[in-house]
């Protein structure tokens, strides 16, 4: 659905994206993560033909955005952080205006979308009277109007209250499951990404530092929490025997390749240490992300 190939973007001397490649398969929910200024919004701008790449190929729905945006964006909906509307006009009028840039949309379809996002009854009020949550729903409505196959969401939860974030998350999942939409989702909220995304790409200072399935991030390090009689001597022995590669947080160990928990327990019993608890630890996306960021910072330094 989306294919970025070696996309580079420079703003003057600043390198915003460095040979960024990304392939988003159909019907996936793809998370784009990174710190502020990592290049997420630049990548999204390039995908939507708003920012010109300095180098590389950008294909959306099979078409090159830079030279055939009419076809590339025909079935794309987008939502940005703090969505901007013509505040002095009604919600319905805003939808009519924005839809007009894609294709003629029937009043029935507009009413349908308004009902779908729960704005029925307020569609004729000026947008300036809308709450933040209502604006977010209007943004969703305008993105859904052209019957998109691909939704690009640039930090859509920004500024929403917890209820609004939950609602947005549920809606994104619903779009994916019920309508089969492919969703590219940029967010700072790692728990949100962890809950809804199937795949992620992580950017650090314009460079991609990870690309893979969310499930893989949880298994990237095999950690086991140990409560034993003497943790220091246990970890020293396990390391000498090549069963673990290191100690994490002072209470967990990282298993070596091809070593499983029973082997560790067996060794601890052999050396006569009392074992109170052995718990496999699943790494959270947040831990995984922070490790990547630290590694990225270290590499940069």
């Amino acid at each position, binding site marked *: 659905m989306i294919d970025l190939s070696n996309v580079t973007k420079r703003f003057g001397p600043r390198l915003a994206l460095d040979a960024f490649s990304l392939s988003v398969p159909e019907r996936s929910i793809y998370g784009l993560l990174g710190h502020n200024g990592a290049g997420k919004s630049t990548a999204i701008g390039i995908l*939507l033909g708003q920012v010109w790449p300095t180098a590389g190929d950008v294909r959306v729905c099979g078409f090159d955005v830079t030279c055939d945006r009419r076809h590339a964006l025909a079935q794309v909906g987008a939502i940005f952080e703090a969505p901007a509307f013509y505040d002095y006009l009604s919600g319905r009028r805003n939808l009519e205006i924005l839809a007009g840039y894609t294709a*003629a949309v029937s009043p029935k379809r507009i009413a349908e979308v308004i009902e779908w996002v729960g704005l029925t009854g307020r569609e004729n009020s000026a947008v300036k009277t809308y709450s933040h949550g209502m604006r977010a729903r209007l943004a969703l409505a305008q993105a859904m109007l052209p019957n998109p196959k691909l939704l690009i969401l640039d930090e859509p939860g920004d500024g929403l209250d917890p209820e609004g974030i939950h609602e947005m998350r549920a809606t994104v999942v619903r779009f994916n499951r019920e309508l089969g939409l492919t969703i590219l989702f940029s967010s700072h909220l790692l728990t949100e990404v962890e809950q809804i995304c199937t795949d992620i790409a992580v950017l650090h200072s314009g460079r991609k530092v990870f690309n893979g399935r969310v499930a893989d991030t949880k298994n990237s390090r095999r950690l086991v929490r140990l409560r034993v009689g003497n943790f220091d001597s246990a970890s020293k022995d396990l390391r000498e025997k090549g069963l673990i590669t290191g100690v994490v947080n002072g209470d967990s160990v990282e298993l070596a390749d091809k070593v499983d928990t029973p082997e560790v327990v067996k060794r601890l019993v052999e050396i006569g240490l009392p074992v109170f608890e052995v718990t496999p630890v699943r790494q959270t996306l947040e831990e995984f992300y922070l490790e990547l960021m630290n590694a990225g910072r270290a590499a940069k330094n």
Partner: protein
Amino acid sequence: MLYLQLRGELWKLFGKKRTYIGFTIILLTQLIVTVWFKYSRASPTMARILEGNGYLAEQFLSGLTVATVMLVPIAYVLLPLYVALIGGDLVAKEVEDGTLRMILSRPISRVRLLLVKWLAGSVFAVLLVAALAGFGAVFGHLFFGIGGLFVFIPGELFSVFSASEGWQHYAVSNTFLTVKAISIMSAAFMFSCFNVKPAAATILALSFFFVNAVLQEIPYFREYQHFFFTHHLNLWQLMFGQPIPWWKVGQSLSVLVGFNVSFLVIGCAVFHARDIKS
């Protein structure tokens, strides 16, 4: 699709209160000028000029004459201001408000978007001139009634027409005034396509206009006046000539078409090359 897009641009334009500032100020100015004319010593002064040239003042001290008297200064000062204000807003305001990102996530080309916006700006310019002509004619006739047309621009023009001829000249002159309005709007529109604030686009366009006007007014530059934008913007005044110098009209019209095309092409080129970011 073009109709839908133009309709959308017009909804946006005429949904804003600031769009009506020009209409309101022009209406109030014309009302004040007409009343002042009626109840001050301005009318006897005009009568003296007419009688001094051998004309019967009562025949030409009419609504049409007063409407034309008001037209000249408003077309020089107020009209450029309000069309530049709207032209400067057309692109830059959308960038500033963030709505342009919403538009550019849709499959419309940048050039087409600009053309639709320019068309909307031109519709505004035409309506503002129509309001200027209409309000002037209505107020003039309410206070002074029907009669011949007397046009006097010191150093440039002295013409008298019968009522029916006067109406024709007044209508044609206002038609050509739309060319002036559209041209200034186009200049502001071009600046609006640059990475500037809406106010800066308006000020740049007005500066371009006034610098041209200043240069044109310097007596030593008279022989170069056909190089000045403002010289050609005055083609609407030629419609009050006896006879109308059509070759001059054609010349100015061609130059203004050239200016407008240049403004559009430069605007499109600059806008096309820009990265639109939040």
